[in-house]
């Protein structure tokens, strides 16, 4: 397993950190305050997790005034995705679309 894999797995192994990352994936950019409100841990703890996510390339920060906004970096997950399952999912998805198209076509 590559070093990149190690870092990603270690980073996402922590449930609190994973929940923060997942929430960013689901809801988009958030500030530390937004994230703390529902994380169940204190703001310094959330900040620490965001720092680790940032070092793993999983989140990016953007400064605006006194606020820092964090957004997810899905590209960072690429090494974890096996191409065979990925392409299988891709073609299954496209066949669904093909089925819809065929229904709409005459003849």
């Amino acid at each position, binding site marked *: 397993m590559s070093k990149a894999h190690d870092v990603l797995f270690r980073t996402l192994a922590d449930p609190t950190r994973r929940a923060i990352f997942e929430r960013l994936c689901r809801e988009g950019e958030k500030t530390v305050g937004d994230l703390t409100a529902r994380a169940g841990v204190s703001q310094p703890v959330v900040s620490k997790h965001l720092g680790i996510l940032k070092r793993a390339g999983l989140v990016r920060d953007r400064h605006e005034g006194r606020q820092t906004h964090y957004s997810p970096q899905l590209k960072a997950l690429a090494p*974890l995705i096996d191409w065979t399952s*990925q*392409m299988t999912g891709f073609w299954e998805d496209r066949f669904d679309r093909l089925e819809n198209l065929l229904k709409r076509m005459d003849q």
Partner: protein
Amino acid sequence: MNDRAADTRSVVVEREFPYPPEKLWRALTQPHLIEEWLMKNDFVPVVGHRFNLRGDWGGVLDCEVLEVEPHKTLSYTWNFAHDDAAYNLQSVVTFTLTPTHTGTHLRVEQKGFRPDQKQAYGGAHAGWRQFLEKLDQVVARAE
């Protein structure tokens, strides 16, 4: 093992459609129909024709028609060039149509990835979704 054949892996997806092969063939070979289920393209069903498939994620695939046997077989290259070798992809996609009593059996096979190919950019959308669904399950179990 450095055997070239051993490095080649393939993906096969098959499905039965309740329509004759002629109808599926149109969906597979007419650009405006291809766009509706696959990607934007400038496809022409002529062996040797080079074309692009443009994904809605911004990626552009370089393709060349390899085989055209109307209502039966369609094959083209499916290559993605990227500065980062981890994203490079060289593959061949082959569609095979077989008539059945109730319609057509469609099989798509994609093969010929580089040995260091860990991901296929062409499938990014479905891949992220799958990954996030898995992540969701992991998180659900952890809670």
